[in-house]
């Protein structure tokens, strides 16, 4: 279990594990997110991470998409919604989302960098 006590998620073709790492927290995505409404899975998960990051003043969370082979635009919407929450935070509560991506997966190379434009400084693609 991680420092925020967030349970792993396993639904349809995706598995998401939240684990502690040296800098803070990591959410690891494996599989495909191509269900009709991924917000049912992703919105509550991102809300728990967001609330925990703010409450415990954790500076970084890694969103590790290396093992995610497909993400539909409804899934991108859920991630965008999470990122937009950072725009509402006062400076002393801000944290950064670091996106780890797989350069061998085409959609990751084209989709993920666009997320950095949503809230300046909130997201870094590594």
């Amino acid at each position, binding site marked *: 279990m991680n420092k925020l006590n967030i349970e792993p998620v396993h639904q349809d073709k995706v598995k998401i594990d939240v684990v502690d790492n040296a800098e803070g927290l990591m959410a690891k995505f494996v599989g495909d997110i*191509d*269900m009709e409404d991924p917000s049912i899975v992703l919105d509550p998960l991102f809300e728990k991470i967001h609330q925990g990051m703010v409450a415990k003043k954790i500076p970084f969370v890694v969103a590790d998409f290396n093992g995610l082979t497909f993400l539909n635009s409804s899934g991108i919407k859920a991630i965008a919604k999470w990122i937009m929450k950072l725009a509402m935070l006062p400076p002393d509560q801000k944290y950064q989302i670091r996106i780890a991506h797989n350069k061998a997966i085409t959609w990751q190379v084209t989709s993920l960098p666009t997320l950095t434009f949503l809230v300046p400084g909130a997201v870094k693609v590594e």
Partner: protein
Amino acid sequence: MSKPDGYIEIRFGPRWKYISPARVFIQNFIAIALSDQAKADAIAMATSELLENAVKYGASEDTHCIVQAFPETGVIQASVTNHATEQGAREVQALYNKIMSGDPLEAYIVQMREAATRTDGKSQLGLARIRYETSADVKLDVTPDHKVTITIIVK
């Protein structure tokens, strides 16, 4: 455009579970036709987005997809057709007009920001994503009986 060297035609009832195998099939077809994995991935993503919209918002039990490969020029043309309601057809026309105007990246970011605040369960990101990520020419055709065809041409 010259005659395609290969094409596939997929027709299925509006069931979400058929989209994923259709995407994989299209991806494999393009990878074999063009020997270009990155293009195959991009077009598979794009057609998957179009099929998702067709199944989500279709008004009839039929979704029709044609993918044509032109290996001499490396061009791929893919189109997805379904029947929409009158209101659905109007909405897709309005969304198309909005997304096709202006810079593709700007339009995508605007749509992402709007999607994040939507409460109607829609994302309306698919077309903007396709346009930006594939650099495709995107065409929309809506007939008087609300048959909607979206065609992408990727060079």
